[in-house]
């Protein structure tokens, strides 16, 4: 192709004294997927916001297909052919309308559409779009009833209905399971073949390996590396992102002392296979599995949000059957849930209030809260976890994703736990913060059993002493985190018949 789809020249943007973008040069070519990597705070989001018209640049220029491009606002950028699918999918769909209406929504907005909706035409056109995009869902289904992956597909399909020259996907897989992500990648492949220039922002190495044609790495507001010769040098890209070599995290595997958490013949649902599992004091156990493998259900049962069909759970030899989350917390079982935005972050609160939320009682005199004690405790945790913030009285929204997650984890390290459950603790977290969290969880593991629920094998290998694989509500494999047979692990996860690596004592 002779003309670049989008060319960014010397883009600059500052917020006060903070230079977020200092002279960015990027070109996007038609029919190619460019992955944008960068730790939190590198300036990725700001770059995207400038390109998609949410913010104006302070300096530099952009051209779109050879013509000057300076979008006044988001709608202008879309009109000119730059379409962005943002991280939170629900911004891109109307949950209460059905699939067909969602797909045709942009058509309905056009003045040329006329007053009345011609239902049959609308459905025919929607079916056509769905077929083109390879979306296989009931067009009459309400979008709110669909899975996250389907909603994401529809958001992208809507974006594609405008025939964009440039499509920006901002961490599209952050809430997708592996199989769902595969469907998304297939769609991206198809769009690439249609000649769309795609800018793909992600933290996940597995995604990047799967779809990247080129990799651009940002660090401290500048481009720190461009990789476009096959085979792509992923390790060098990570190095460019972090500024130092990615070293495999060395896990000094602990087998733990006495058993803390014991599951015996626990059936997650009626008719599921019984689960037997033991987690010991000081041990970090990773439970890996795809969406629907039952690991979320297990987490819910342990945290008092759901009841098992049968079987018993014991903690330190005593029967444990929490009737509510409140009850679970009172018995020393803490959980940091996944999707911190919906499940954990109190947007209206500052860092100290967010962090101390579960244990306000112990930070109060009678009912009266001690702000001083809250601050002291929060500051301790800020120091221990290396949370980057001006002060603990800053709003939680001022922190980057990685630091927000650190606050959410710190919440449950304030008081000693019997059992600590971490559900997808590395979701939307840059690699630096991920290492910090992993290191701290391992360093504090003594005195409790730690269960980490993960979809990514890489992450499990980084944090766990033992990796337990779940599939269809049952435990299908167990691996000590030492010279792990990756092929066997992957086979367990994908549900290929049980391998030689059976459960270990």
């Amino acid at each position: 192709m002779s003309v670049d789809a989008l060319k960014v020249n010397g883009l600059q943007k500052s917020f006060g004294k903070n230079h977020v973008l200092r002279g960015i040069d990027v070109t996007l070519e038609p029919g190619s997927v460019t992955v944008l990597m960068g730790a939190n705070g590198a300036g990725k989001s700001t770059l995207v916001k400038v390109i998609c018209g949410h913010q104006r640049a302070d300096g530099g220029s952009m051209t779109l297909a050879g013509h000057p491009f300076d979008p006044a606002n988001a709608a202008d950028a879309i009109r000119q052919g730059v379409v962005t699918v943002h991280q939170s999918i629900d911004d891109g769909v109307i949950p209460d309308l059905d699939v067909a209406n969602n797909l045709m929504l942009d058509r309905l907005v056009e003045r040329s559409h006329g007053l009345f909706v011609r239902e049959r035409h609308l459905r025919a056109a929607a079916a056509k779009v769905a077929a083109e995009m390879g979306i296989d869902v009931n067009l009459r289904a309400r979008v709110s009833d669909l899975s996250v992956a389907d909603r994401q597909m529809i958001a992208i399909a809507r974006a594609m209905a405008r025939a964009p020259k440039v499509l920006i996907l901002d961490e599209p897989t952050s809430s997708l399971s592996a199989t769902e992500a595969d469907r998304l990648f297939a769609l991206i492949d198809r769009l690439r073949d249609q000649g769309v220039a795609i800018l793909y922002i992600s933290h996940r190495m597995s995604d990047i390996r799967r779809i990247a044609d080129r990799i651009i790495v940002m660090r401290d507001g500048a481009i720190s590396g461009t990789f476009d010769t096959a085979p792509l040098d992923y390790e060098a890209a990570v190095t460019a992102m972090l500024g130092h070599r990615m070293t495999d995290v060395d896990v000094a595997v602990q087998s733990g002392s006495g058993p803390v958490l014991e599951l015996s013949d626990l059936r997650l649902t009626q008719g599921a296979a019984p689960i037997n599992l033991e987690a010991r004091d000081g041990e970090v156990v990773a439970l890996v599995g795809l969406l629907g493998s039952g690991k979320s259900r297990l987490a819910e049962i342990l945290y008092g949000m759901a009841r098992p069909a049968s079987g018993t759970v014991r903690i330190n030899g005593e029967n444990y059957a929490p009737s509510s989350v409140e009850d679970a917390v009172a018995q020393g079982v803490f959980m940091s849930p996944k999707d911190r935005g919906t499940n954990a972050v109190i947007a209206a609160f500052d860092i100290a209030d967010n962090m101390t939320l579960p244990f306000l009682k112990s930070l109060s005199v009678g009912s009266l809260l001690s702000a001083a004690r809250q601050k002291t405790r929060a500051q301790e945790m800020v120091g221990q976890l290396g949370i980057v913030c001006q002060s603990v009285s800053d709003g939680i929204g001022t922190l980057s994703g990685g630091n927000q997650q650190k606050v959410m984890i710190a919440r449950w390290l304030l008081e000693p736990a019997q059992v600590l459950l971490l559900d997808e603790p590395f979701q939307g977290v840059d690699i630096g913060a991920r290492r910090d969290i992993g290191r701290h969880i391992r360093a504090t593991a003594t005195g409790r059993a730690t269960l980490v629920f993960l979809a990514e094998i890489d992450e499990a290998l980084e944090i766990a002493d033992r990796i337990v694989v779940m599939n269809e509500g049952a435990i299908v494999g167990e691996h000590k985190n030492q010279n792990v047979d990756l092929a066997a692990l992957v086979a367990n996860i994908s549900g290929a018949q049980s391998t030689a690596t059976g459960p270990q004592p």
Partner: protein
Amino acid sequence: MNDRFLDFAIRYGFLILLFGLIVYFSLAAPGFFGPLSAAFVLQSVAITGILALGVTCTLVVGGFDLSIGAVATSALMLSAYSMVILEHPTVVAVFLCLGMGALVGLINGLLIVKFRVPDLLATLGMMFLLIGLQRIPTQGNSIATGMTLTDGTVAEGTFSAAFLWLGRHRFDVVIDRLLPMPVVIFIGIAVLIWLFLGFTRHGRLMYAIGSNERAAALVGTPVNRYKIAAYMISGVTASIGGILLAARLGRGDIASGNNLLLDSVAAALIGFAVLGAARPNAFGTAIGALFVGILLQGMTMMNAPYYTQDFVKGAVLVAALVFTFYLSSRRSGAGH
């Protein structure tokens, strides 16, 4: 510089406006600036202020209570019925009313958390129900000593002196017999709710529920109990408002208290704008009530006709809401 000015405007704009208003009326309306006029303003906002503080609690947990006006008028009628017709002593009448308020709050709360009725609809239904209910025992008539009952007997009871004291007593502050009892109760409740919401762990958890209910539940907060508690607080404060109204009027007037709901909701919403809080808070609510009171008092003293009052209140409310939602969103948008 511009950011800092915006920040300052959001934080102190409303208080500066209030101060400016006082200065303006003091200069323009002779007699506005003085203890008597101040006591009158406070007196005029005390009852709406008390109701507004209750509704603030429900706003904090992300809910809304439309039934407060109806609870207050029900308490008014109930206290009259209890004392004039049933001839109960003061204490019984007061506790009956408080109990009624708590019960209505409990039912509201249960409708919302157990039966999953959206808060606006549940409390709207309750409002309707109470407005109807308070008319049934007296066939729609007001209650006064000496009225003839359906069975032909004459109501012999009276509002006791102790009960009327609640609404009419004036404390000696600066001048003799200056500060009315309802104002003292209003200030007392304001301080209590301010402490409760701002400085206790219960208040903090209620704000957490209002901001992200799911996250609050997942740290082990008994969300349902706190929500029910918020509606019960709202019900009890509304019944206190009704008691004070009855004590001031000295009769069970079926037609009074029509404006209570709108005025108190307005005060609570204006409170969002005070100190740039952008969320419900007790201090803001009290200031919001005061703001409306001062504005109306000043206008009345400058001979503005009474029928312009609602228009002015509405205008203040709309301005405060724009202030809260537009300016604050610009501030948070610029912060990144």
